[in-house]
């Protein structure tokens, strides 16, 4: 008969313990877990990232429902353990279930400490502890503006950062004169404060809260010094206390936490405790790394394996706020008998302090540059004596050039680490676990290792070390380039997907997803448009364009605006129009009561505010080709006057522009493409911030590429100089086709050229025969295009999709 194990608490420490136990002894226990939260086990640490918008709730699930089922674990989610009968060896839950146990584990974590201020029970006053709190903050940010975070520690600052990302105004109230006083010294703390102020945080330091104001819902907070601060939301992040109530009422010995020995046993037979609820040698830990070490010891104990027991941990911290690198470990405050080595560089905002006692590193604080963190943390843990060579810890051996880095190299560090040393504190992954995954399971990149062992999946602080272990184990050449799929539906990269499409002659998105084992049967809004594009690019003739995989603008051939109306932009080649066309446009605008007529940035006329139902009618009345202002496609070719009228013009910029636009209109491209032609180097058409710009010079043309006037302004690079108009068209065709064939979907030419390199592009277009081949392919594609407006006007079935359904009268 299997023994019965009951665990109270479905949190990080507890479930990590169960994972270890399952590894050591998969069949020893029949396991039940009682968890008060209605979720499977998730990574609490990552709540900060969810709040900051860097991860989704789904990303932070550590073990999903299947994991429990597959491992035969009974999870009583959403139930609380309310009583333990130590004599009968049973636990009762809030739903009235009674579970017998042979071994019981308390892993109840801790409760956020709520300041007992008057008004603390008002709506809008919360802690930051679980998914529910995180959801409350996200929800609140949609309706309210001003948040106050009480507590300038790690948690408070992470909450504040998240709330800023949610567009709230945030003030952080802290009782001390400087932030994170438990982890930082004043110098580092002031640097941190300055950086966070730059990110938009406001600080109220040395403030004692007095009362929370408001009727039902909080409206503000008053301080002891008589000042006040408005608030629609108050997040208290002032500390935690071990959740020990149930243990205490069950007769288990409790001090601050549940008292355990080196093997995580309490004073009651067969009852153990791990995690934040446990107190070991007078210490209660609030970070996961030590809790995992505790779990590992308990797992060995219950699996009947040898272990030396748990002897306490050295702590290290990292603030998970983007753009801020902070690290602290061990005893970093100077005390009698300690000496410290400090580097402070206010210019670069870097501060480093290493504290020694009797020649050993006992603590460290790093701000700005935390690349030495793994090394220092390891030095603290190893207890190595550096007497006489203290400086080497930061600067490396004398004569090696000094500088911020150096010292023992990361490679040396990896070699020096023992196998059972934890590399990823967040997920309790040891060096041996990683080595095993690399040699036995074939992991060859940090991403593989993350998928396989979860290492670096938490706060990400251990990523450099994971990388170093990978390199040390495999050798640098073998390390695969870190790999990310084109979307959440696949791990395959763009190139792998396009390769497969070409090699296997896949011609529909459905086929691609099926053959390449997509995780979701019909993909998502990211991969579907991308695949549709890649298929059309690879097989222009065979692939049938999939309307349902196109973004709304390209399906409705007009730009969707924020209120659900559309804008219509007729094609006006080179920006040149006629009085007749202008009159026609004016008449149509009047007929359909277009609320706004304006010129676009590319010299075209924009008719804004059109109802979807009116689109086909307008197109018909306009009787002009579509201007494609909505597509991932050639948008406009902007031109200046050129030598037609301008006294400086050296060439006919208008004709060049019109010819380019006529030739390449309707071309599908990875992203929108804008062209311009200027008649002389004065460049009035601003051709050097376009995807491709042509500038006339005396006796020829310069072709510029990969410019951008959008969010990230980028001046174009000179691709080549040519003599004739024909050559301009030839180079443009080759360039556009090369972009079409090699860019990621939704990658503008400016990003693409940075990624693949201008030299590579020049090389690909250097030879006439290569350009000819590219042009042959683009011409084939262009041959097949049709004007979508005309198509829809001519087809009843296409047009009907624009009509609204109504109920038959009287029903």
């Amino acid at each position, binding site marked *: 008969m299997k023994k019965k194990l009951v665990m109270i608490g479905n949190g990080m420490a507890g479930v990590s313990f169960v994972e270890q136990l399952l590894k050591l002894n998969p069949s020893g226990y029949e396991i039940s877990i009682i968890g008060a939260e209605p979720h499977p086990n998730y990574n609490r640490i990552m709540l900060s990232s969810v709040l900051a918008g860097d991860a989704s709730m789904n990303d932070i699930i550590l073990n999903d429902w299947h994991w429990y089922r597959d491992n035969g674990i009974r999870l009583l989610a959403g139930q609380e353990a309310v009583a333990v009968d130590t004599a009968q060896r049973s636990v009762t839950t809030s739903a009235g279930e009674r579970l017998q146990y042979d071994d019981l584990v308390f892993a109840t974590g801790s409760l956020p400490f709520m300041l007992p201020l008057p008004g603390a029970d008002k709506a809008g006053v919360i802690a930051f502890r679980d998914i529910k709190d995180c959801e409350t903050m996200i929800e609140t940010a949609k309706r309210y503006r001003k948040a106050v975070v009480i507590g300038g520690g790690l948690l408070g600052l992470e909450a504040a950062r998240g709330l800023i990302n949610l567009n709230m105004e945030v003030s952080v109230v802290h009782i001390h004169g400087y932030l994170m006083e438990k982890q930082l010294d004043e110098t580092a703390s002031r640097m941190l404060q300055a950086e966070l102020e730059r990110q938009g945080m406001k600080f109220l330091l040395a403030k004692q809260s007095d009362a929370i104001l408001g009727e039902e819902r909080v409206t503000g907070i008053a301080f002891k010094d008589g000042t006040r601060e408005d608030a629609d939301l108050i997040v208290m992040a002032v500390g935690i206390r071990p959740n020990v109530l149930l243990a205490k009422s069950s007769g288990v010995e409790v001090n601050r936490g549940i008292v355990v020995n080196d093997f995580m046993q309490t004073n009651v037979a067969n009852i153990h405790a791990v995690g934040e609820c446990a107190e070991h040698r007078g210490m209660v830990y609030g970070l996961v790394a030590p809790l995992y070490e505790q779990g590992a010891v308990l797992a060995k104990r219950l699996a009947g394996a040898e272990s030396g027991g748990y002897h306490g941990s050295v702590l290290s911290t990292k603030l998970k706020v983007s753009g801020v690198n902070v690290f602290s470990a061990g005893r970093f405050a100077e005390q009698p008998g300690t000496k410290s080595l400090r580097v402070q560089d206010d210019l670069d905002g870097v501060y480093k302090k290493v504290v020694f006692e009797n020649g050993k590193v006992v603590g460290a604080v790093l701000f700005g540059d935390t690349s030495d963190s793994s090394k220092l943390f390891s030095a603290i843990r190893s207890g190595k004596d550096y007497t006489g060579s203290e400086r080497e810890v930061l600067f490396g051996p004398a004569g090696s050039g000094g500088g911020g880095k150096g010292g023992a190299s990361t490679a040396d560090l990896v070699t020096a680490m023992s196998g059972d040393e934890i590399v990823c504190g967040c997920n309790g992954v040891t060096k041996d676990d990683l080595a095993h995954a690399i040699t036995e399971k074939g992991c060859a990149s940090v991403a593989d290792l993350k998928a396989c062992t979860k290492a670096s999946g938490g706060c990400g602080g251990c990523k450099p070390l994971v990388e170093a272990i990978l390199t040390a184990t495999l050798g640098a050449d073998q390390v695969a380039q870190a790999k990310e799929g084109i979307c959440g539906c696949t791990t395959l990269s763009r190139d792998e997907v396009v390769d497969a499409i070409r090699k296997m002659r896949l011609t529909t998105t459905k086929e691609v997803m099926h053959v390449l084992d997509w995780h979701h049967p019909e993909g998502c*809004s990211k991969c579907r448009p991308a695949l549709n594009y890649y298929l059309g690019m690879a097989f222009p003739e065979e692939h049938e364009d999939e309307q349902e995989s196109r973004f709304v603008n390209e399906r409705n051939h007009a730009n969707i605006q924020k*209120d*659900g109306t559309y804008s219509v932009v007729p094609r006006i080649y080179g920006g040149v129009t006629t009085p007749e066309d202008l009159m026609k446009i004016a008449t149509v605008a009047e007929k359909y009561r277009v609320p706004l007529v304006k010129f676009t940035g590319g010299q075209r006329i924009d008719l804004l505010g059109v109802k979807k139902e009116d689109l086909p009618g307008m197109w018909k009345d306009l009787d002009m080709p579509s201007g494609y202002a909505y597509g991932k496609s050639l948008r406009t070719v902007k031109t200046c006057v050129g030598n037609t009228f301008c006294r400086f013009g050296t060439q006919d910029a208008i004709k060049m522009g019109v010819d380019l636009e006529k030739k390449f209109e309707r071309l599908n491209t990875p992203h929108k493409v804008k062209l311009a032609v200027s008649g002389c180097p004065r460049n009035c058409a601003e051709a050097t911030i376009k995807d491709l710009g042509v500038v006339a010079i005396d006796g020829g043309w310069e072709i510029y590429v990969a410019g951008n006037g959008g969010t990230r302004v980028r001046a174009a690079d000179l691709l080549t100089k040519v003599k004739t108009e024909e050559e301009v068209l030839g180079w443009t065709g080759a360039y556009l086709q090369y972009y079409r064939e090699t860019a990621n979907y939704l990658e503008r030419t400016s990003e693409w050229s940075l990624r693949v390199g201008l030299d590579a592009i020049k090389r690909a277009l250097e030879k006439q025969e290569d350009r000819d081949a590219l042009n042959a392919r683009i011409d084939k594609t262009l041959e097949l295009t049709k004007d979508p407006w005309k198509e829809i006007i001519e087809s009843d079935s296409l047009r009907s999709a624009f009509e*609204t*359904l109504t*109920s038959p009268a009287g029903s």
Partner: protein
Amino acid sequence: MGKVIVGHISEFPERSGRVFRMGSLELALFKLSDGTVKAIENRCPHKHGKLSEGIVCDHHVYCPLHDWKIDLHDGIVQAPDQGCVNAYRVEVDGDGEVILFLEDGLEAKVS
């Protein structure tokens, strides 16, 4: 109110939305690849995007404005975003008529 015939199944292109309007009510109807038709309010809980214009992936639609993902079975917004829209029961009868149920009690339950 009650049952309303909104059209014939042949008028519904697969995996694209159609708009149905009655009084102040505006719904988005979608024919999924399994042939069933789903109806939800045509108004994204985020910033009121027209859901009828979204990309449909099995039984989800992605809002065209900011890509929120909504389950067409029950109208629930998928994590990490939150919220829901009303979902309505739709049936396709033997002749291919698409019938929408608007009676209060018959609204598809938003669980």
